[in-house]
Structures are given as structure tokens and as C-alpha cells.
């Protein structure tokens, strides 16, 4: 497989990856196939495949994220790119003022790929319109986090051999979750049955028309599920604003062995991290035999290599 293979390039005809929305099922599957190969490469001693040699990748993070940023950094380096990390502290950003300025400044340095995380939905789209290089959305507000959904799909497919017709229960703070939105779109595109499980205050308006089955009772929602995907609950939402308390949330929506027993015996547990043990998930489940949480991190690097490689096929060669 070569990044410059025209057949391959045709499978992913996009200059940016701004979201799962707009991707065709075969394009998603193409990325997952690439990622499978990247997993093999990453497990070798010699991990470098220099398809991005000479290219400059900038990770522009307006929101701190050790996990996603290092994952993109390693992915870029394994493909031979020069990777630079830019942290823009949220406190120093006056209402997105520097977003356009930063875009213009960076653009003048001729990067080939920009990986962007921003706290506002749509910020990555705005930036993509202002720069000449490829842009990857590493999470924009509560909108999308496409590489997370891709790595989740890769993880599932490697264990279950397929995505179609699996029952996936996404549980927790759906309202504020970009991971949930990207996953709902991707899993539906690949034919999975998607459920969401959450208290009504943590469900977005119109959720019943988003292609999911909605459950407020977690035991009901987990019944017969193949995959249980937990979401992180942000601290500021725990004490009265959306739910009354952590202990009440944990009692009704925290994943413990008892609730997990309602899912299929071979059900797998996932979490995008970082986890709040004892809030949305019992440590025993998080670290138990059904958990894929650590493997998700490995798949994250592979998927990001696949995305970088797919976009590299569209980079100008001179």
C-alpha cells in the first residue's frame, strides 16, 4: 500500500477530516483497513514508514488534551512527519480572537497538516476555510471528534469481526459529548443498532430523531448489548446543574458488574477516557476482562496514522 496509489487516494476523496458526517461507508471502511495495517506496523520494532517525510504537521490545541495530542504526535512521527505541538491556553484566548490570527500565522509557515482541537463547535470548520493545508478535527466543542469514533469502530471490528447488526449502547452525558455524536453517525453508517442511555437532562433535544433508541433505564438499555460505551461526565455538571449528585448518578448510570450483566455475556466495555472511576464506571469493570479501554488507546494511534496517510495522498507534491 502506498499513499500515492491513485486507487487508494480515490477511496478517500477529502482534503480535510472535519467530521464523520459526510463520509461514505466505504470511505470509513477504507480508513479502518488502513488502520489495521498501521496496527501491525506499530507493533514492529521498526515503526517508521516515511510516507510523510518532509511534511510538517502542527498539532494546534486550544483545549488541553494529553491523550489525543500525544496520539496524533506519535502517529505523525511514525509516518516520518515533522510534528510540532502548539498549546494555546484557553485563558489567553480572548473569545476566539486568536483563532483567525493564529490560522493566518500558521498558514504562512506552510504546514501540510493541521490537527486542531477547539472548545467551540464549528471552530475547526472556520479554520479549515482560512488555511491552505489539510485540517483534521481533533474535537470541536460538543460537535464532533471523528478520530475517536474511528478508533472505537476499529477496536470493535477487531474483536467482533464486524460492525453491522451489533447492538451498541452509548451511556452517559450524550448532551455534551462530541464523541457520542461522531459515534452515532459512524455506527449508523456501518449498520449497527445504536442505543443511548442517559437521564433526560443529559440528552440533546431531538435525540429520538438522531437514529438511536433512547433508554432512561440503564438495565433496559444494556439488555442484549454487544458493546457498552461509557462517556465521561464533566465535574462541573455533577452537582445539581444536570444531575443532583455523583452518588445518585453512579447508582443509576454508573457501569458496575450488576448492570453489565444485563448485556450479552461477551459484551465489551469501552470508554474514550479519561475515566472518572466511581462516577460513571466501577474500577473493577474498567480494569476487568471485558474492558477494551487500554486497547482503544493503541487503536487511536493506528487510526490517526491511517487518517494522516489518507490525507497525505491529496497533498501537493511540489
Amino acid at each position, binding site marked *: 500500500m502506498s499513499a500515492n496509489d491513485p486507487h487508494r487516494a480515490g477511496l478517500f476523496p477529502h482534503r480535510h477530516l472535519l467530521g464523520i*458526517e459526510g463520509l461514505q461507508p466505504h470511505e470509513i471502511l477504507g480508513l479502518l483497513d488502513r488502520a489495521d495495517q498501521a496496527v501491525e506496523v506499530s507493533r514492529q520494532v521498526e515503526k517508521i514508514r516515511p510516507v510523510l517525510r518532509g511534511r510538517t504537521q502542527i498539532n494546534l490545541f486550544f483545549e488541553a488534551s494529553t491523550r489525543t495530542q500525544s496520539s496524533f504526535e506519535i502517529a505523525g512521527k511514525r509516518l516520518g512527519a515533522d510534528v510540532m505541538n502548539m498549546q494555546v491556553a484557553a485563558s489567553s484566548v480572548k*473569545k*476566539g*480572537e486568536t*483563532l*483567525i490570527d493564529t490560522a493566518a500565522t500558521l498558514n504562512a509557515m506552510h504546514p501540510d497538516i493541521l490537527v486542531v482541537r*477547539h472548545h*467551540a*463547535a*464549528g*471552530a475547526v*470548520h*472556520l479554520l479549515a476555510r482560512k488555511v491552505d493545508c489539510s485540517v483534521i478535527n481533533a474535537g*470541536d*466543542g*460538543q*460537535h*464532533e471528534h471523528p478520530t475517536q469514533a474511528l478508533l472505537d469502530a476499529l477496536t470493535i471490528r477487531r474483536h467482533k469481526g464486524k460492525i453491522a447488526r451489533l447492538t451498541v449502547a452509548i451511556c452517559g452525558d450524550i448532551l455534551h459529548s*462530541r464523541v457520542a*455524536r461522531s459515534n452515532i453517525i459512524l455506527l449508523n453508517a456501518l449498520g449497527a443498532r445504536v442505543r443511548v442511555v442517559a437521564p433526560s437532562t443529559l440528552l*440533546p*433535544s*431531538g*435525540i429520538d*430523531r*438522531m437514529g438511536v433508541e433512547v433508554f432512561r433505564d440503564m438495565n433496559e438499555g444494556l439488555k442484549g448489548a454487544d458493546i457498552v460505551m461509557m462517556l465521561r461526565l464533566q465535574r462541573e455538571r455533577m452537582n445539581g446543574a444536570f444531575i443532583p449528585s455523583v452518588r445518585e448518578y453512579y447508582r443509576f448510570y454508573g457501569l458496575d458488574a450488576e448492570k453489565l450483566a444485563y448485556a450479552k455475556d461477551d459484551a465489551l466495555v469501552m470508554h474514550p477516557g479519561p475515566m472518572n472511576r466511581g462516577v460513571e464506571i466501577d474500577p473493577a469493570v474498567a480494569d476487568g476482562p471485558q474492558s477494551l479501554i487500554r486497547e482503544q488507546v493503541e487503536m487511536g494511534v493506528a487510526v490517526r496514522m491511517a487518517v494522516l496517510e489518507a490525507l497525505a495522498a491529496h497533498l501537493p507534491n511540489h
Partner: protein
Amino acid sequence: MAADTPKPLVLTNARVIDPARGIDAPGAVIIADGTILAAGPEALNQGTPYGAEVRDCDGAVVAPGLIDMCVSVGEPGHEHRETFASASQAAAAGGVTTIVTLPETDPVIDDPALVDFILRRARDTAIVNVRPMAALTKGLAGQDMTEIGLLKEAGAVAFTNGHKSVRNAQIMRRILTYAKDFGALVVHHTEDPDLAGGSMNAGLNASWKGLSGVPREAEIIMLERDLRLVAMSKGRYHANLVSTSDGADVVRVGKDRGLDVTAGVSINHLTQNENDIGPYRTFFKMSPPLRSEEDRMAMVAAVADGSIDVICSNHDPQDVETKRHPWADAEDGAIGLETLLAAALRLYHAGDIELLPLLRAMTLNPANRLGLEAGRLTAGAPADVIVFDVDRPWVLEKKAIRSRSKNSPFEDARFSGRVLTTIVAGRKVYDYA
């Protein structure tokens, strides 16, 4: 203004529309000394004043100039966004002969001296009429009422809290009660500030975009509250920017109960819906937010049946510094003076509203509500008149926009219907070349 008076003017071979008398007929309009001498079929046989310019309108519509009841200018305080000079140029090109300004300036128009400032600035720099609304509460803070009597004396035509609702019901009740003694009109934005925390219409669309929504109920609840307070206080009330079908229903009920209530809608909410936002295009971010297509259609129907009285532009110039941000961080607001008539004519061409009632909502109705003599072609009324071709096609090009700010949701839009001539107090202020 210079002492030279314009030559008398006779507009012949015209389709004369005068909402005040329900006229839509071939005829002429005779103008002298800044006022209308005669208009309609009866003006055909009245001869021509001495020295008059005679203009053959070739069948084009002659109607009262539009009165735009909700305009932000930017002066004082934000002259880089818009001045009276630039706003009035845009207005004249759009067929608007009277702009009614919001007090959301810096400083806020909450003092009689500031009303006077606006009237003087407008007299010296504007080519259309400017009628200021004053603040309903000091600093628009929603706490202390302004000097309604003195402000009215200074020339304020109505009182409003701009794009912010008065949160406290007791304060709103007292203001309505006090304003009634002066016959002052209270123009209110109806969005419950606690419910309206989001940045676009609540619902599926916002959910997919990852944006927090402004539920329709934010408007409905505030409007229902207000009409209860109007019933208590017997005050004069105008809901400035209604955007939902239920909001229109609340207004209907209020009118049926005999309350002194009217309501307006922005042209944006009659011609656009939330789907126009597309990929987070901030020129479509406004308050209230663009709603669903169902609500848009309901608002059009409400204008057609007279439940909603006034169509305004909600002209709100914003520059690059306030608009080129991620959606949630960008300011609300869109310009609209220059496109008010052309956009409204879309409703006529779509067969949704007849020309006469459509024009009534932008001329006679706001004039009557604000106590202005303009907005009609009756003899003796100010000669604020427009000539427009109902069908003439044109495209709004960004570089041709006259406003200082270019934040138009109609950029590159195709329109049918073009203002040919705008006349203010008998003087031509705009001619389409």
C-alpha cells in the same frame, strides 16, 4: 438642511399603492413643498404644478417609503460599523425613508440629551428620516426606568430594551403602568434570558451541530408574561421580534382580549430558516434565532392575516471583529436595510402575501403605531415616496453593499424587485442608475 426647496414632482403612469386608503390602482402622485398634494387615480386629472418635473413611471409601483421599526446604527460608539450617513444611504437604496433606531449604542440612549444628539446628527448627515427609540431602563440594565416623559418630549418615538428582555416582571409591570400615563409605546424583545442561553434554534439541527439551543418556549413564555402585565397595566405594547407560531398565537389572543398590543417580525424570520445556517455561517446568527421552516411559514401566515402588524429589517451591522469567530462566540445580528423591500417581495412573488398588505406592514402599520405622519400617500402627508419595479431582477453583491458592515445573510442572493427611486420630503435621495 439647505433652504432650497425641491421642484414639484409628478409621478405619472404609475401603479399607485396606498395602504391608508386601500388603493392599488393606476394613477399618479403629485408632490410639492415636501408633501403629497394628491395620489392615486384622482391625481390623474389635477394638472401639473408650475415648474414641476414630470416622471413617467412606466407602470412601476409608487408607494409610501418604508418605515423600518428596528434598526441599529452604531452611532454613537461604533461608527466603524455604521454611521447615520452610511445607514441612510443603505436605507435609501432599499426604499426605506424612515429608520427607527434602537438605543443599544455606546452610550446607551437613556438621556434626553442623547436623543437630541441623535436627531441633530441625523439632520446633519442622514438622507432619510431618523426617529430614535429611547432606552426603557437606564443603561438597558433592566432595573431602573428611564425618564420616559422627558425622553418623549425630546423626540423618542418609543421605548425599548433593545435585544434584551426585562427579566424582572415587577419592574416591567411598573414601567408599563408608568409609560401608559405618557401614551408611550413599550417595544419589547421577548426572550426569557434564562431559557435563551443558547446560540441557535433548539432542536435536532442544534443537537447535531453540538450547539446549545434557544427553545421556542423562551419567546412564548416571555410574551405570555408580558401580555398578562399589559392586561394588568393597560399599557401600550409592541412585541418587537416574534419568531414562532405559538408567539403569533399569543399575540392573537392578546388582540382578541382587546389589549393595546401589536407585534413585529424581522424579514429574516420570514424568508430564512435554521437550515440556512449551513456550516456555522455566523451572518445567520441573530436574536431571536432563525427558526424551523414550520415557524417561518406560520410567521408569513400571521403577517398575511394581520396578526403580526410590522415587518422590520432588524438591521444590525457587525464587523469582522465580532463575526469571524466560532459560532457560539460570534455576535448576533445581520444587516438588512438595503434588502428589506426586495426580500419582502419574495413573499409576494411566492404568492404568500398580496402587495397591499405586505406594504402596509412596512408603512402604515409602523407609522400608526409610532404616531408618525409618514407611511401613507394621503394629501398633506410628508412626501416620503418610493418607486419600485416589482419584477426587476438583481443580485446583492458584497462589494456593492452600502452599509459599512457587510454582514448580510443575503450575500449573492437573487432578488426580483428593485427600488428605482426614493424620495424623502419631496427630495430624491436615491435613483437606480
